[in-house]
């Protein structure tokens, strides 16, 4: 089922969600317990496990769980470090890098994580609900998830020229390529209409 309209019916939990400022991108995954993934797993690029630092058959955590205080920001940073992430200072889009934002509540306890897509928009998995895309992190901030307070980044594994300095010629070639693609698309659209 793909219906994110429930987000609009919880104004006391998601104060900044408005019709049109998010896009529903996946179906709901709450049909069976332990069968889905959560926002933390989604942010780390995994879709097969429910990432949470708790000793439970339904939960997975990549590092040994701290028995005294497992749900801390430091613990979450260490977990993301196993996936190649390192702490960074802001949520700005950087070409060739993947970014993750960790949300914490008023007590500083992690509640949610979002991933910055190559398109420049953020993607969040809403618990057992759907994946949504939102332009800013502010949209999912609120009483439920708190605020985005920690950012991490890693080189994008899909990007071949991650750390290479792009030359002027390669940029021009990329621009012409995009222009040619747009021209082809417009021409085919005109042909279909006529």
């Amino acid at each position, binding site marked *: 089922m793909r219906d994110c309209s*429930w*987000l609009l019916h*919880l104004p006391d*939990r998601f104060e900044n969600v408005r019709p049109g400022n998010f896009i529903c991108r996946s179906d709901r995954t*709450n049909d*069976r*317990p*332990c*069968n889905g993934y*959560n*926002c*933390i797993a989604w942010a780390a690029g995994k879709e097969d496990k*429910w990432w*949470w630092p*708790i000793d*439970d*058959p*339904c*939960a*997975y955590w990549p590092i040994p769980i701290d028995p005294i205080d497992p*749900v801390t920001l430091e613990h979450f940073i260490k977990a993301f470090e196993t996936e190649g992430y390192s702490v960074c200072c802001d949520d700005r889009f950087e070409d060739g890098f993947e970014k993750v934002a960790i949300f914490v509540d008023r007590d500083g*306890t*992690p*509640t*949610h*994580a979002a991933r910055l897509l190559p398109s420049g928009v953020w993607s969040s*998995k*809403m*618990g*057992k*609900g759907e994946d949504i895309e939102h332009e800013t992190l502010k949209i999912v901030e609120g009483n*439920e998830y708190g605020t985005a307070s920690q950012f991490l980044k890693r080189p994008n594994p899909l990007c071949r020229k991650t750390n290479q300095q792009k030359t002027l010629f390669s940029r021009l070639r990329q621009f012409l390529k995009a222009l040619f693609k747009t021209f082809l698309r417009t021409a085919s659209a005109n042909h279909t209409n006529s």
Partner: protein
Amino acid sequence: MPCTQHPFKRSRKEYSTEAPYCRKENWWKSPDNESEEKTSVHRHVTKMSSYVLPPKGKTWSIVWFASGLKSLKKAEKHLRSAKLDEEFNKLVKQWKEETFFLSSLSKMFAHPAYQRIMAMGTDGLSLVLGELQNGQGNWFYALKFMAGKDVAAGIKNYEAARAAWLEWGYKNNYI
């Protein structure tokens, strides 16, 4: 004087005025009548052996009373379990509705509805195991506290943990 509290069909001999169960005329005018009557009844009963219940009859009545109590207790238990069932279903619905957008399992387990289910203790075990049998919700955390032990300790696989708990429930007559 004939007894006015009995049908006329019966003979006078059968119900004499002296009988303890027949009140005298204007009995209510005299203040000591009641106590007098009680004493007369008592006297009469002690005199006449036929009024005393035989010991067998007494035993039967006790048995009947005890069985009545037992069925009453059963009915009460049934009513209580029905109420618990209703409350449980309500709590499960509330918990699912209010936590489905959460990622934090810690927050899910700390939800008031889940905590209330955990507080049901052994009374709610069969209901929780029923939910687990239907494959609904994450109940391992609650089961651990309700049963007082972790049957699925160390198991990291959902199906294996579910099977372990269901087996335990079956062995302990909760399913």
